């Protein structure tokens, strides 16, 4: 049953303008499989995964790059997901130089793109950040792959000072999505609806406040999976719709809807 529901979702014809209820998974290169590549930094790599809310974490676990949200999305959807996260990477320096080779050499149909938190550490301007993201969009489009932009979760606690910059980057990401007619997966919004306290968010390793914990990566993966399937996770009943599509036990999806 799960296979049938996913198959139907994948068959939706994606086109130039993306409504929130359009599925984003399509076998664009015609190789008979839908593959997704996740490009990013330590948050894509999965640093911090394996800890639970309420723990005091001196230093988030580095992990082996096999977990995080990519592995969860892969399991939810039953498709191959390539984790191309590099801890500590800046988008405007290393990331955008690494990106062309990674994407050119990949057979993925869809590219999930989330990087920028380390740029915030060095106060990279929103304008410079935007140029780098636009380059990523152009390269992916020229290779006939579908790029999906992710907004950045707002850091808190020990890293709260970064949120001014990540918030600015997120506004640039949303603007580029409009200009380029691209879909956005709104991780920032998931944090806003689901954190117990946005200023001391229980989805992060605390007191660091930068790398998600197990619950945080669950939230990311559920938000991403829902959007890839064309399910509005922030609508009333969105969590139940995702559970139904994936045949999950009721209560498994923990992303909360928008406040009414």
């Amino acid at each position, binding site marked *: 049953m799960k296979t049938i529901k996913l198959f139907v979702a994948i*068959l*939706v014809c994606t*086109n*130039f303008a993306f409504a929130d209820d359009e599925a984003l998974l*399509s076998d664009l*290169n015609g190789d008979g499989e839908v593959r997704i590549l996740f490009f990013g930094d330590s948050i894509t790599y999965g640093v911090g995964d394996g800890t639970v809310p309420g723990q005091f974490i001196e230093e988030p676990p580095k992990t082996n790059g096999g977990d995080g949200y990519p592995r969860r999305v892969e399991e939810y959807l039953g498709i191959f997901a390539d984790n191309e996260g590099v801890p500590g990477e800046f988008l405007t320096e290393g990331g955008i130089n690494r990106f062309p080779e990674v994407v050119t050499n990949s057979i993925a149909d869809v590219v999930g793109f989330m990087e920028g938190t380390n740029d915030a550490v060095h106060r990279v301007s929103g304008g410079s950040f935007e140029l780098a993201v636009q*380059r990523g969009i152009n*390269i992916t*489009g020229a290779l006939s792959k579908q790029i999906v932009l992710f907004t950045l979760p707002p850091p808190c606690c020990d890293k709260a000072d970064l949120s001014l910059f990540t918030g600015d980057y997120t506004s640039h990401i949303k603007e580029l999505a409009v200009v380029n007619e691209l879909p956005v997966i709104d991780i920032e919004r998931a944090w806003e609806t689901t954190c117990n306290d946005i200023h001391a968010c229980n989805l992060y390793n605390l007191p660091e406040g930068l790398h998600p914990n197990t619950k945080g990566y669950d939230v990311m993966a559920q938000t991403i999976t829902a959007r890839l399937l064309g399910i509005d996770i922030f609508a009333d009943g969105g969590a139940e719709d995702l559970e139904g599509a994936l045949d999950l036990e009721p209560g498994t999806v923990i992303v909360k809807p928008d406040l009414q």
Partner: protein
Amino acid sequence: MKKIVCILISALGLTSLAGCGGGGGGGGGGSGSRIGKNTPGLRVIQASIDTAPLQFANADMELSTPSVFGKPVYYGRVTEGPFNVGLQRANTAERVLTVPVTVEEKDRKTILVYGLSENDLFAQVFDDDPPEVDGSEAALRVYNGVVGAGAVMVSVGGQFVGPIGYGDASEFVTIPSGPVDYRVSDAGSDATLFRGSAEVVGGKIYTIAPQGERFSFITSPFFENQ
């Protein structure tokens, strides 16, 4: 019915063949403008790797789709006369460039937009006046928007085209119809910048548009003038 066809074709990965779009991809596909033969036409090749899709700012001018890096582009309908073409970021009113252009009856012109980013853009206007070609051959022109490569050469269908300076275009050349491989190279060192292949139909006019940045990413779409 069309949606059902699109759904099935999408599942088979054939979106570009069917004009279904296929999201950001599509390669040689797309739904280009098909303006009348006697209607003046203007197109924009957006060759800047850090620049967003562009569209006309002028209310009386029309591009059927924004001009996107790395994608085929088509002539849009314009009025005759001298005017300033405003180019703005797609889906916004944010103007990034103004280009003076004079268009006369039946003219076809290309604006090549090049440079690294919107803060550093240049534009050149070219008259597209191809030679008459019969059914056994096609005409082709190359527009060079590759940052950091200087002049480029293109070998295609047994012809060597160039050297073509940065921001410049070649003369039209004729090539035989049929499948062709093409190679874009640095005119100085002969280093390969891009390789591709295409199917050339006799009697048609084509564009090769190398673009991007040397040592980062270069693409070179090959498409019919429409």
